[in-house]
């Protein structure tokens, strides 16, 4: 398979040498791929703005020993151009990209579910279907679910007792009943737990009506849960600008 073609979303780019870039992308069928785009930083480059982060592209790659090489690229959806016009959308999109990069550690291992989730998240962001902060939190919760770290919001994470429960522990994996609560558990508002459940289930009618204070609490829990499982910081998260004008509270 010296040359192959696939759809991909660009996660991030790194400068290489004088005029090249290493493009890290999540492909539909080949998982995470890192490839060199030669001469992309020159103004005469045929790649142009196609390989900017967040863009969905149809890409042709030549397989290499360590890194592949981009030989052709066509734009399918230029999410980067739309996202960079709105700071909240852009920062949320980059946090999604960094999380995807961190969750998928191995190259060339198919991650179709994550690809579809990322595509759906970016599309919802640029179409402004919901508040960018809510879309991001929903994406993070669902990404963790795909990765096998699904948090339990409506049942006790330890004894599976039906909730709602008052305590929440990141280390235990979700809500805890009064019998199972452990030291260090937090007690978020019931509305926050309910919002988290709605974001995991995709119940946007409920999520859109949530108050600002519960959204803030929920995003803190989501970030803590994500970074505890990843065992490292997602740097983009602290730069995410959460809109205040779109929240109900």
């Amino acid at each position: 398979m010296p040359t192959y073609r696939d759809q991909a979303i660009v996660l991030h780019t790194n400068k290489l040498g004088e005029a090249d870039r290493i493009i890290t992308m999540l492909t539909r069928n080949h998982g995470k791929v890192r490839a060199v785009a030669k001469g992309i930083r020159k103004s005469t480059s045929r790649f142009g703005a196609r390989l900017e982060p967040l863009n969905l592209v149809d890409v042709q790659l030549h397989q290499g020993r360590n890194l592949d090489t981009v030989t052709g690229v066509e734009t399918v959806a230029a999410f980067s151009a739309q996202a960079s016009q709105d700071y909240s959308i852009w920062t949320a999109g980059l946090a999604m990209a960094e999380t995807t990069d961190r969750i998928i550690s191995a190259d060339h291992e198919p991650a179709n579910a994550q690809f579809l989730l990322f595509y759906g998240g970016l599309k919802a962001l640029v179409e402004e279907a919901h508040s960018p902060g809510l879309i991001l939190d929903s994406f993070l919760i669902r990404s963790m679910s795909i990765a096998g770290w699904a948090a339990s919001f409506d049942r006790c994470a330890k004894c599976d007792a039906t909730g709602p429960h008052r305590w929440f522990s990141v280390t235990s994996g979700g809500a805890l009943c009064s019998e199972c609560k452990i030291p260090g558990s937090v007690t978020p508002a019931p509305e926050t737990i309910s919002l988290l459940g709605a974001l995991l289930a995709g119940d946007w009618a409920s999520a859109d009506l949530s108050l600002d204070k519960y959204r803030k609490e929920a995003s803190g829990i989501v970030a803590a849960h994500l970074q505890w499982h990843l065992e490292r910081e997602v740097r983009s998260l602290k730069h995410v600008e959460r809109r205040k004008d779109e929240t109900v509270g």
Partner: protein
Amino acid sequence: MYEGILQDLIDELGKLPGVGPKMAQRIAVHILQSDPETPKKLAELLLILQDRVNFCEMCGTVSEEAQCRICRDPRRDVSQICVVEESKDVIAIERSREFNGRYHVLGGSINPSQDIGPGQLRIKELITRLQDGAVQEVIIATDPDMEGEATSTYLARHLGPLGVTVSRIATGLQMGGDLEYADEVTIGRALSGRRIISQGGIS
């Protein structure tokens, strides 16, 4: 692999950006074989570089004086400030000879994945420069990539309320290129930023 000082020099040169092991080896052997004055001059310049070269207190570009040549020049238009990411962008715009205002170097662009937020850039200094009312227009000339565009969006939102005109340098098709090879975003920008060259009905 070489030994001693020569290998130490190759290792140090190899740490420089864009210099790989082979290139480092070539440079080191070239220095070794050149006449004694060449490495002496190079060493002297390297030693005084960080002591003598600083950043302009006004615009942030590289300068040997407290203020750079452009900020000291009374003939430059004080009503326009061109905002760029790096000092090398000042040189690039100066080469065009099309701009007679002053500059402001941000020191990079907003890049959340590299943990660079607005607080790490020289945005506060830019806002301070706008306080005296002399500046009428801020031209944002950050790179035409996603980080540059987002930085531009952020700046426009924060500078607009200060009462100055905020403009963005045009993006579009490059001179000498073929339209058919241009990407969709570039063509889109070129169309939205088109200019009228003849007004219909006027003879």
